[in-house]
Structures are given as structure tokens and as C-alpha cells.
């Protein structure tokens, strides 16, 4: 129902709050962001294209995309298990574990960055046994994936928990009365019901990982063409005063994130429509 602007409103403060909100957003968000597009436009179409497809830049896309995907996939798999265990089972220390899942949200990325690097370096607690098995983590793309797994961990778990928790028992009971085994019930009844939330959690973890900087930049090693993420490349260009080049890459990253988030939003409202009676 579209409400005309002029209708007198019962509750006060509409003009004040909306006005302030828009003002704040403009100053903090819209104007700064617009400079991004303005600056990259100065390159012109061909200059822009050259900037965003240079070999070093392409290599950074590959690394960022690949490692983000890997992290999101690992989190999807293990996150499902964690969410299920936290909702359905009880064990000593359950509350503590549940609270701990939010650590990657609360911990500053720089701290995460340095501790993961120290742990997975060849002299580190986890790095040493892995090195003996022939696996190098720090300063390789694998290290980037590990950091991005850490960063995205809460997303899958937290999106799945409420959904699993609100599954009504009748569906599982009905399936059991019809002769289904526990595994069949999971595959045919539970999984389809939680699939939208699972995909959403995965996508959110992926989106977050794409733009991540602080937790990655220490463990990556930052070798151009090999272990340089796109976000770092932007900073490098900034330090070289190649503002236009930096903004070009930033625009690409922004567009990718927006598209992803838009897709997530659309997907969420579609799945809500599908599952409501």
C-alpha cells in the first residue's frame, strides 16, 4: 500500500529521523562511494579495461575467488555439523562452545592475521606437523584459504541454527512412522527444509571472504602473481599513487559483492515465499 507523503502521521519524528538518516548516509556513505566511480571513470573505457585485466590483477582475482570459495565450502560442510550438534545435542560446555562460535566476528582481523600466521608457519604449533607431512600452509594460497575459513566460520553456523531449531518434530515423526531410517529422514525431509538457509550462509561467508584484508595479509606472503589478494593490490596501487588503477579494481570488487548480495537477498525472499503456507 503506497502511502502518500502528505498524509498526517500519528507518530512524530518522521521528518526528523528520516532526514537525519539520509543526511548521515549521504555524508558517510554515498558521497565517498561516488568518488570511487568518478575516479575510475577518469580512465576511460579502455584504460579501465586495461587496469582490471592486467595479469597481476587477474592473478589476484583468481586467488581471491578460489580461496574464498574454498573457505566457504569448508565452512558449509563443517558449519552444518556444528549447527546440528549445537541445536540437537547437549553436552557439558555446550553454552561456552555456542558463544565461542562468534569469535571471528568479535576478534580484530589483525589479531586473527598474526596468530594464524604464527600457528601455520613451519615453526608453528600446527605448521610443523603439517610441514612434516609435506604440506606448507603459511605464505601459500592454502594459508589464505585457512584465514578465510576462520573469517567465515560463524556465518553458516548462525544462519543454520535458528532454522534447525524451528524444524517441527511432526515431519520427522511422520517420516519415521512411514518407515524411514534416520539417514533417510535427514536426506529427504530435513535437508530440503534447511537448504535455503544453508545456501544463504554459504553465500554470506563467501561474500565476506572476498573483501577480507586484515586476517589474510599476514599469512598470505603477498607475492605478486602468487599469493597477492585483490584487496592488497588496491593498497599497493594507492601507495604508488595510482589512484585510478586502485579504484578500477575496487569497482570490480564492489560490483561483484553487490551482485552477490543482491542474489542472496533475492534468494532469501524467494525461499521465504516458497516455504510459507
Amino acid at each position, binding site marked *: 500500500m503506497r502511502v502518500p507523503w502528505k498524509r498526517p502521521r500519528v507518530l512524530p519524528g*518522521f521528518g526528523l529521523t528520516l532526514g537525519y538518516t539520509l543526511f548521515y548516509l549521504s555524508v*558517510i556513505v554515498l558521497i565517498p562511494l561516488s568518488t570511487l566511480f568518478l575516479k575510475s571513470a577518469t580512465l576511460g573505457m579502455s584504460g579501465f579495461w586495461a587496469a582490471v585485466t592486467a595479469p597481476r590483477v587477474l592473478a589476484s582475482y583468481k586467488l581471491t575467488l578460489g580461496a574464498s570459495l574454498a573457505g566457504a565450502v569448508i565452512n558449509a560442510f563443517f558449519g552444518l555439523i556444528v549447527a546440528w550438534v549445537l541445536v540437537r545435542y547437549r553436552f557439558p560446555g555446550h553454552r561456552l562452545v555456542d558463544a565461542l562460535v562468534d569469535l571471528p566476528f568479535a576478534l580484530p582481523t589483525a589479531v586473527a592475521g598474526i596468530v594464524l600466521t604464527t600457528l601455520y608457519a613451519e615453526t608453528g604449533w600446527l605448521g610443523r606437523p603439517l610441514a612434516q607431512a609435506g604440506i606448507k600452509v603459511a605464505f601459500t594460497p592454502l594459508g589464505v584459504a585457512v584465514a578465510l575459513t576462520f573469517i567465515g566460520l560463524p556465518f553458516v553456523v548462525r544462519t543454520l541454527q535458528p532454522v534447525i531449531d524451528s524444524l517441527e518434530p511432526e515431519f520427522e515423526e511422520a517420516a519415521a512412522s512411514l518407515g524411514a531410517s534416520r539417514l533417510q529422514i535427514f536426506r529427504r525431509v530435513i535437508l530440503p527444509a534447511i537448504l535455503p538457509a544453508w545456501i544463504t550462509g554459504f553465500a554470506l561467508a563467501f561474500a565476506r571472504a572476498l573483501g577480507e584484508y586484515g586476517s589474510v595479509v599476514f599469512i598470505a606472503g603477498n607475492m605478486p602473481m602468487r599469493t597477492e589478494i585483490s584487496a592488497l593490490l588496491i593498497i599497493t596501487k594507492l601507495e604508488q599513487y595510482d589512484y585510478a588503477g586502485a579504484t578500477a579494481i575496487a569497482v570490480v570488487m564492489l560490483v561483484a559483492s553487490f551482485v552477490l548480495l543482491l542474489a542472496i537477498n533475492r534468494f532469501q525472499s524467494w525461499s521465504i515465499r516458497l516455504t510459507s503456507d
Partner: protein
Amino acid sequence: MATIVGVQNRLTAGPRNLTEPFAVRVVLTLVALAYLLVFLVVPLGAVFAEALQKGWAAYVNAVREPMALSALWLTLLTAAIAVPLNLVFGVAAAWAIAKFEFPGKNALITLIDLPFAVSPVISGMVFILLFGRQGYLGPWLQAHDLKVVFAVPGLVLATIFVTFPFVARELIPVMQAGGTEEEEAARVLGAGGWTTFYRVTLPSVKWGLLFGVILCNARALGEFGAVSVVSGHIRGKTNTLPLHVEILYNEYNFQAAFAVASLLTFVAILTLVAKSVVEWRSSRRTDVLSEPRA
């Protein structure tokens, strides 16, 4: 994302009598715990282990070192400015969105979610583009001898950009859930605008508000990427605590880096505790409200 309109606080979920066989449950639980151990517990412990590797005295020295202290001060100052500003914004935006209908509301909500879609590096970069020496407003600032980037104002702006959604995002669903009837009733009874807000709206959303402030604060204290771009890393002047950690680490002064990092980790742990408490208190309150009177 992590809102408190979340998981119910029942003892167990799922059908009462149907569950996986015991062996399966044990395996799943162990796998889940192992995953969390490797990715969460070990790093958490390692921060403190590394910080204390040269003993308690070295730890205290690193924390009390003047540069570290000034970084701490700057971090606190930044948060002290950013969080209240974002609080006011969050309340205003939530009020406008939750209690009114207007065209473009959805676009506004998406706009508020923006920082979550933007890499922190980009968040910092836009301020350089705007206020840097070669930026759009650079010459004007230089003419008036004002510094934004590579100075404290830049840090504050970048921090505000990155953390402004938190309060709004927590508050909007809570305010929406509250509906408009109570406020309308207050108006009918003759209450003024501010009175309605203080006495009717605020008490019913206080947990959501607190939650949002906690998250906003945690992020403000710990922000690294955006601030790193904007600050210029000038020790003693534009170094926040996370940036100081980076500098120490890059100088191979690992023990000091972890010592300072441990301070931030304490804050993170406090944030988790506060979050749990708020979730517990708010769900307890709604349980009490929804129980039928005997």
C-alpha cells in the same frame, strides 16, 4: 546477521524420541568440537601463549610501552566518537524504518547494509579519494591547513563508515516486532514525541539496542583494514591498537605484537560474554511475557 531475534531457549529441539544412534551422535559431536578446536580455540590460546612466551615482565612492558599506550588511547578515542554517533544514527534510522511506511524503504534498508558488502580496504580508500592530497577535497583542505587522512579525523570517519550498520540492524527488527500500537496509544493519551520514545519505545528495545552497541563497539575497536589505508601508520599519532600490532609484527617483535594483541583479544572475549548475557536476558524476558497466566 547475529540478531537476538534468534534461537529459542528450549532444553532440546527436535522430536522427543527420535534421534540419531548414539555412535553417530558421538562422532558428529567430536567432529564439530575438533573443527572448532582447530579454528577457534587453538588460535585463541596461541595469542596468550605467544604474548607470555618471554614471561610476565616482558608482557607488562610491552603493554605499558608508550607507543602502545598512545595507540590504545587513540583506539578508545575513535570508538568513543564513532559509537555514539552511530548509536544516534541507528536509533533515528530504525525509528523511521520500523514505524513508518514510505516509498524507497527497501532501498534505504539495503543502503544501510552497504558496509557489509564493501571490503574494508575500499572503505578506507574512498576517504583518501575524497580527502587525500590528491583527492577531490584535498586542495581545499590543504588551503585551510586541515588534515583528514593521515590524521585522527580520517580514522574516525573510516571507523564510522565501517560500523554504522550495527546498531540500526539490531534495532530495526526489534522495533518492527514491537509494532506501532503502543506508541500510538501513548500519543492518544497525550504524550509528546520524545516522551513517547523514552518511556514507551526505549524500554521495549533496550536489549536490542545494547546488543547493537556491543557489536558496534567491538568492531570499532578492532577495525584494521579501513583504518590501515587511511592512517598513514604514523606511530604515536595515527596508530590505533590494531595498526600497532601490525607494526610490531612486521618488525619481528613477535612477543610485543602478541602482548598488544592480547589486549584486543580480552575485549573480544568480553564482547562474547556480553553478547551471551544480553541474549540470555532478552530471551528470558520474552519467555516471561509469552507464558499464559495461570
